[in-house]
């Protein structure tokens, strides 16, 4: 037996290829949407992996530092560093801002990391160019997604930083590239007021009889100093010594210090479950709509192709072709169309994924699910055409 569907596709291959191409672009978009979702999850995991932390200490009753804002004192790291099992503890700050480079600016997650301790938690673990931050001030490491290059001088608030190193795949959960700067600079930048505000505050403090007491020399200076420094950070990252139970330590730290402590699994649950939940739903909606549109297109095309062959189908039936053979022919054509579409979609998604600003992760598993979904949709979409074909009366072939 020959493949009727195959012969028909070969005969009118132009029609099939063009329709398959259009369908393929749609499938490509669908695969890309799934890739965007996977990319967000992967970004979150890379963010956690690269922080090099086993525990995150944040403000009590918050889900910081990524999903909510969190503020804790910058000496807490010293307290927790002495707990048994804690290998390293380091403060970090995170804040998203527009970083200026000359006349343009890039959106970035500016991360403050401790200096002096090589490889402390929070440090970028791998550089693709340049070196780590070695000075306590005015050096920066940028992710290449920011478009910055070694030697670029960027401006964060009033200070200028020289880019000394470059990383890859270090982005926030929103996809913004990370820029690392020394912790002290970051603390200052996060709370820095403009000059006018500082002068205004100093004037108000001086005018207040509560602080400005000539009888207590040094009080005013001390007050002004506390007002213009920032003793807080967003989180403390802890790296455990091997062989210690991190959940036990987490429990102790949170009980004795009135702090919130998350382990890796808890942090991941917040990042992947809560932070990107809305985006994930959004993508889910897109996937559903794209699936429906694809199904409608396949159904419409297969139905039209079948109606165009109704005479031949009547003849096939008259000369004794079984219904299953005819249904099989239509089903195979729908599947064939789906396969062409899937191939085009997979290739185009692979081709255009790197051009997207946010990371797109195309996994073989998603491709497989996509293929199965396309096959199911095509099979479903051919039902209409199959019904039309099976209703054809073989007597029609004989005519009046």
């Amino acid at each position, binding site marked *: *037996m*020959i493949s*009727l569907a195959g*012969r*028909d596709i*070969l*005969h*009118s291959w132009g029609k099939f290829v063009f329709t398959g191409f259009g369908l393929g672009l749609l499938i490509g978009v669908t695969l890309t949407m799934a890739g965007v979702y996977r990319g967000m999850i992967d970004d979150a995991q890379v963010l956690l992996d690269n922080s090099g932390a086993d525990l995150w200490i944040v403000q009590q009753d918050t889900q910081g530092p990524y999903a909510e804002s969190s503020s804790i004192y910058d000496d807490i790291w010293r307290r927790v560093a002495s707990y048994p099992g804690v290998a390293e503890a380091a403060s970090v700050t995170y804040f998203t801002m527009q970083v200026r480079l000359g006349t343009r600016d890039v959106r970035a997650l500016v991360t403050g990391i401790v200096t002096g301790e090589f490889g402390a938690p929070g440090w970028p673990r791998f550089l693709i160019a340049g070196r780590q931050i070695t000075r306590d001030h005015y050096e920066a490491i940028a992710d290449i997604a920011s478009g910055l290059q070694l030697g670029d001088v960027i401006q964060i608030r009033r200070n200028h930083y020289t880019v000394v190193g470059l990383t890859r795949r270090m982005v926030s959960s929103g996809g913004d590239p990370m820029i690392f700067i020394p912790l002290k600079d970051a603390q200052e930048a996060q709370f820095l007021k403009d000059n006018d505000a500082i002068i205004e505050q100093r004037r108000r403090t001086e005018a207040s009889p509560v602080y400005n007491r000539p009888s207590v020399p040094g009080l005013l200076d001390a007050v002004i100093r506390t007002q213009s420094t920032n003793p807080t950070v967003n989180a403390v990252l802890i790296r455990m010594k091997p062989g210690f139970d991190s959940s036990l330590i987490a429990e102790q730290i949170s009980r004795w210090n009135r702090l919130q402590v998350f382990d890796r699994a808890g942090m991941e649950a917040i990042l992947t479950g809560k932070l990107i939940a809305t985006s994930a739903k959004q993508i889910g909606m897109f996937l559903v709509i794209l699936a429906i549109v694809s199904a409608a297109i396949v159904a419409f095309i297969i139905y039209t192709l079948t109606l165009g062959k109704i*005479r*031949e189908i009547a*003849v*096939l*039936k*008259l*000369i*004794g*072709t*079984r219904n299953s*053979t005819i249904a099989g022919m239509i089903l195979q054509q729908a599947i064939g169309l789906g396969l062409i579409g899937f191939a085009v979609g997979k290739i185009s998604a692979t081709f255009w994924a790197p051009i997207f600003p946010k990371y797109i992760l195309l996994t073989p598993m998603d491709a497989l699910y996509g293929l199965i979904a396309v096959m199911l949709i095509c099979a479903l979409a051919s039902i209409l055409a199959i019904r039309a074909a099976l209703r054809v*009366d*073989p*007597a029609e*072939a*004989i*005519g*009046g």
Partner: protein
Amino acid sequence: MTHGIRIEHLSKRYGSGDTAVDALKNVNMAVAPGEVVGLIGPSGSGKSTLLKCLGAVIKPTTGKMILGDEVIFDNDWKIKDLRALRRDKIGFVFQAPYLIPFLDVTDNIALLPMLAGVPNKEARARAHELLNALDVAPRARAMPAQLSGGEQQRVAIARGLINRPPVILADEPTAPLDSTRALAVIRILNDMAQRYQTAIIVVTHDEKIIPTFKRIYHIRDGVTFEEAGEGRAIT
């Protein structure tokens, strides 16, 4: 005498009640193996209806139909698989050739035996034999759209013959052809009837070919009358 086709007192009523149409009232026919008979009648007389009944695509109301020595209808179908009956016992040739546009000439013909489970190679060999007999062998690899009307009709005849059916039903097979080609088709049908001992019924309006039949059935208002034809030789 064994009959290729025998029809006795066949009737067919379309619909029921007030709108009922008695398309066939009393049809009696017998066509011997190797014989080509004409079926002639005015429009609406029931020719197509008769072919559809014989072709087992619509169900007659009453009467009897015998194919070879098998009773296929006796007030009800006497066999279960009408599709297999059509495939194995009846060849169809239509006014328009209705070839499958996406199959080449060979496979258009070989499709029938393939559907019955004959291996592709053997089915194609049988198709080639017929294409030779019908003088279209040089076009064996052509697609239907690349053939002339006459060639298409010959391919359609080959398709009707490929399973060596004991019966061939032809509905206006010469209508689209000029007189030379029309006569050529009738000669082919006569040759094939002789060669394969096929009983052939040709429904026609075509004045050019009517004189070639040895026997003609007239049908009027669903009733058949037999008449001797001229049986003129085709030159």
